[in-house]
């Protein structure tokens, strides 16, 4: 069922129309693009043609025959959804004959539908009921015929039900699954009367290939597919636009809500058709998994405690803030100005992030601010800045629709960036070529109607060697775009790079023993990339989370520049950012060495601009990064921390080391929705607000800034930015914003790439891709057009340096980590939703060969040990992973995969090397001592009195 305010035009806008035509529909003239259907033209002229099988998100199908029309000079009654307009056409959509035909069609449809019974609230609002009503059909003469009534309802999916009794087999769900989602999970089984919708091999939805994106549920014109929340809560009363708070796709949503004030409830989240990142599509997380926002685990009152061994004590906001401020002041007085710092979160808004770094720089008086992007895409910032000149992806998502060859390196879009993956698959089905470089056989390597042309299954940790080998082929086979490079790049660095990659040691043949990828395959992939008209690279954490993460990012930029694949649609270098606001949190100056828009703190002109607005003297030296903070904590020079919305005790590598550092802090202030793993080491807990409870903006992976809107009052009383203001004021540095929009105004004043932004403008345009300034007042979808931001593009010779993390006889396997569709990062949100039915624990994927020699079978408990630590989880024997490599996710604190990851990190940015850890796997029969201890710790009392009323 559509969003309650949605106007359906029946068929999609024609792809690329060359001209326009004028037609007359029911006497109303209308001019539309060539190729437009009569149905759409009618809708544009304000005439609603009855329909059932058509909807404007799907190609016209022409099966229900409800949309018949009459055309002057033509015989018969063509379907208006499948008939295109022609110049001068005169169409009638209403006549006694048409009504009679439509009524008979409707009666036939209703012959297998329980029209006589009182509809449920959800049923009453469906298109089928609306059409029957419009046609005045309230019963059917065929009611006594054979019917499907009595078939069992499929309630297996946690979020929606499928009731075959009210299914009219219009195929809209099947087409949605194929065309929009690209999963091909549904089919119409059988023929004629026996035909029915089936998931996979006629299985319950939960057991089928369905990924629960909900596209079919939205497309269904009856209540056959219905959200459970809609049934439970009843229809919504109004719609509020907002932005998803999960991944870096940043889907636009319409939150359908009911109730007012404190009683406001979300009924459904419906992806926004006008959302420029998602065009009306969404995934299981954004559409369905928002229940965490009101989960009973949320801690709604501030709490303090003297030591981390004490019980928490619930206190007033005033007391909590006062205590935090006095502790920070005491620590600074005793240990010095630089002994405290703050962490911003990529889950929070731009405004909140901006304020936390402002608090650190202006109120703490140092630059000890960092963000969780440290552990994911910091190498992207450094690598792209030093090659192209800007720390961001170069394209809009839509650009992929013009790519001829798509190379995906170290990313798993179907799981990590599902809505973008659906778009990508659409392009692949149109014939684009696909190269995947990944140690694991990710979903896109082989899925319905998509198959990678080349899968370069490299050994973890050898990206740079592979990129050099690809570049070697490009250079030695004369595939560089010399004119492009001559015009746009530094000649000297290009010549150096060319000579470097052309060296025989960088050839695919020479690097085969390093990467494990057959040389011929590398050669084919390089040609496919370099010879395509438009070739685009998408990459993820499989590139960045390595000791050579930055080098690999530079290697990617080198390849793209050398082949002329930057600066227009269809090409580019696009990091797939993990969290909703990773791009934004980096843009906002969350790194210890730079202000917003990536300007170094040592730049006196930039610093002065901030000093003038903030009214304080700022430091010119870089501050501590997160891992440096841990080190400084261990040596006693770092004692206090303000952590907004991050859980690094679970997410950061080498948990034991992090825990030891955290234990040595004298004051840790955690601001979060939940008492997360980091809160175990906190002295002050400040209850944060969910994305439904705040105003602000998120910036997605394509630099698109969209509004997040306060849909309900903050459950604990304050939006996160307000809490930062309270703390700052208590520290004696005044922050007095009346609303989040005023913070954006300050961001715009101080940040050249955001200079033209304001809440009002974002609202008006829907969303804006930065840079947004005088030159590009409506934003910039494609970067580096005509010229690189840096001026001339700079090539870097990217020497492959093997990681120091090596397999040994003691640790003979390489562990690499990743994430899956239904869970999100540390899982704090998704673990508190119905999504656990798909993934209730982290498992270890292991190749059958490695499993066999260790006596491990599918489902066994196995111990996973590295030099950093050990944990226990279940094995999943799988050929998706190559021999010698094992793989797991890090969504559950019970497993805490990061107990085993090490302190190794990227040379330039200290981004941890999550993707390569030497491990051993053994069969065990019980959970290990560490996990038992972790469980016991979790069981400790946290609060003495806990109720749901905010302070």
């Amino acid at each position, binding site marked *: 069922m559509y969003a309650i305010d949605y106007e359906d035009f029946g068929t999609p806008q024609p792809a690329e129309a060359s001209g326009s035509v004028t037609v007359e529909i029911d006497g109303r003239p209308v001019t539309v693009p060539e190729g437009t259907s009569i149905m759409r033209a009618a809708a544009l002229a304000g005439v609603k043609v009855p329909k059932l099988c058509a909807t404007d998100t799907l190609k016209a199908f022409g099966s229900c025959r409800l949309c018949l029309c009459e055309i002057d000079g033509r015989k018969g009654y063509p379907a208006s959804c499948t008939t295109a307009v022609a110049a001068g056409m005169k169409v009638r959509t209403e006549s006694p004959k048409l009504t009679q035909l439509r009524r008979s069609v409707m009666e036939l449809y209703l012959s297998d539908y329980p029209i006589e019974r009182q509809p449920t609230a959800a049923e009453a609002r469906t298109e089928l009921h609306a059409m029957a009503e419009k046609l005045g059909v309230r019963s059917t003469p065929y009611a006594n015929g054979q019917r499907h009534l009595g078939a069992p309802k499929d309630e297996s999916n946690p979020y929606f039900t499928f009731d075959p009794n009210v299914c009219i087999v219009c195929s809209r769900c099947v087409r949605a699954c194929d065309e929009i989602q690209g999963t091909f999970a549904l089919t119409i089984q059988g023929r004629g009367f026996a035909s029915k919708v089936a998931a996979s091999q006629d299985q319950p939805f939960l057991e089928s290939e369905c990924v629960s994106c909900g596209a079919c549920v939205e497309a269904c014109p009856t209540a056959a597919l219905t959200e459970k929340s809609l049934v439970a809560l009843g229809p919504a009363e109004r719609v509020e636009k907002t932005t998803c708070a999960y991944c870096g796709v940043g889907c636009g949503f319409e939150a359908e809500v009911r109730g007012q004030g404190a009683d406001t409830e979300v009924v459904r989240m419906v992806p926004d058709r006008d959302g420029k990142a998602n065009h009306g599509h969404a995934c299981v997380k954004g559409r369905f998994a928002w229940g965490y926002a009101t989960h009973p685990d949320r801690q709604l009152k501030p709490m303090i405690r003297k030591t981390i061994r004490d019980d928490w004590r619930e206190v007033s906001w005033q007391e909590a803030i006062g205590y935090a401020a006095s502790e920070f002041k005491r620590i600074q007085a005793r240990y010095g100005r630089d002994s405290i710092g703050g962490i911003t979160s990529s889950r929070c808004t731009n405004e909140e992030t901006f304020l936390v770094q402002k608090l650190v720089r202006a109120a703490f008086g140092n630059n000890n601010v960092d963000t969780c992007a440290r552990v994911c895409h910091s190498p992207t910032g450094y690598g792209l800045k030093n090659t192209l000149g800007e720390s961001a992806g170069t394209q809009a998502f839509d650009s992929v629709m013009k790519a001829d060859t798509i190379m995906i390196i170290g990313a798993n879009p179907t799981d990590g960036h599902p809505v973008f993956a659906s778009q990508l698959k659409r392009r692949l089905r149109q014939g684009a070529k696909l190269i995947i470089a990944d140690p694991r056989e990710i979903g896109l390597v082989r899925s319905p109607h998509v198959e990678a042309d080349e899968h370069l299954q490299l050994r973890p940790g050898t990206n740079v060697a592979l990129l050099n080998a690809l570049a070697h082929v490009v250079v030695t086979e004369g595939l560089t775009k010399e004119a492009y490079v001559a015009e746009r790049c530094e000649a000297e660095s290009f010549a150096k790079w060319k000579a470097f990659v052309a060296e025989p040691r960088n050839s695919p043949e020479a690097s085969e023993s390093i990467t494990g990828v057959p040389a011929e395959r590398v050669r084919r992939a390089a040609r496919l990339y370099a010879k395509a008209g438009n070739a685009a690279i998408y990459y993820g954490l499989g590139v960045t989370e390595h000791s050579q993460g930055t080098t690999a990012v530079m290697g990617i930029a080198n390849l793209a520049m050398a082949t002329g694949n930057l600066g227009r649609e269809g090409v580019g270098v696009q990091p797939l950012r993990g969290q909703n606001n990773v791009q934004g949190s980096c843009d906002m100056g969350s790194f210890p060495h730079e202000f917003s828009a990536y300007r170094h703190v040592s730049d006196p002109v930039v610093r002065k601009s901030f000093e003038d607005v903030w009214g304080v003297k700022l430091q010119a030296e870089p*501050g501590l990064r997160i891992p*440096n903070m841990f080190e400084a904590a261990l040596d006693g020079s770092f004692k206090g921390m303000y952590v907004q919305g991050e859980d690094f005790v679970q997410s950061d590598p080498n948990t034991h080391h992090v825990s030891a550092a955290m234990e040595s802090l004298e004051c840790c202030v955690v601001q979060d929705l939940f008492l997360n793993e980091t809160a175990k080491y906190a002295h002050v807990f400040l209850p944060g607000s969910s994305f439904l409870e705040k105003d602000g903006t998120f910036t997605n992976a394509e630099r698109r800034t969209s509004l997040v809107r306060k849909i309900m009052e903050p459950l604990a009383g304050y939006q996160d930015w307000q809490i930062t203001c309270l703390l700052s004021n208590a520290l004696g540095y005044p922050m007095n914003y009346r609303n989040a929009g005023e913070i954006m105004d300050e961001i715009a004043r101080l940040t050249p790439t955001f200079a033209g932004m304001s809440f009002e403008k974002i609202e008006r345009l829907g969303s804006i891709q930065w840079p947004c300034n005088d030159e590009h007042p409506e934003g910039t979808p494609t970067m580096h057009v005509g010229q690189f931001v840096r001026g001339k593009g700079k090539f870097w010779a990217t020497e492959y340096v093997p990681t120091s993390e090596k397999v040994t006889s003691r640790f003979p396997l390489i562990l690499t980590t990743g994430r899956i569709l239904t869970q999100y990062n540390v899982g704090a949100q998704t673990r508190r939703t119905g999504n656990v039915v798909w993934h209730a624990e982290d498992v270890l994927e292991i190749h059958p060969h490695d499993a066999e020699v260790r006596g491990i079978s599918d489902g066994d408990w196995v111990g996973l040990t590295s030099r950093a630590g050990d944990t226990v989880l279940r094995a999943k024997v799988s050929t998706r992973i190559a021999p010698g490599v094992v793989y797991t996710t890090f969504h559950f604190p019970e497993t805490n995969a990061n107990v085993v990851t090490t*302190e190794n990190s990227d040379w*330039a940015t200290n981004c941890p090397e999550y993707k390569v850890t030497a491990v051993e796997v053994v069969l065990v029969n019980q959970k290990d001592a560490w996990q038992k201890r972790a469980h016991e710790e979790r069981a400790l009392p946290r609060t003495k009195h806990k109720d749901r009323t905010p302070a």
Partner: protein
Amino acid sequence: MNIDLLIKMANEIGDFFTGATGSEQAARDVANHLKRYWEPRMRQQMLAYYEQRHGAGLSDVAKNAVGLLYAASKAPPGGAPAGSAAAGSATGAKA
């Protein structure tokens, strides 16, 4: 802080720049990188270590880089800042 870790980090930065710009320029680039990205107490600890242990465990490039920073720290105020020769390159103003 853990000096072994700082040494490892400096060496890895050295490895990159050695490959990218050749060992002579690399020392300046590494020095510049440490200036721009290392918090002062990390640098100070490295300089103290350099003074006491002559940079044992550092690669040649990393040692030269720390040497540049060390010399600059001993230079009278107003002298040329360390790594200034690298300005505009590697991690220079545009970085």
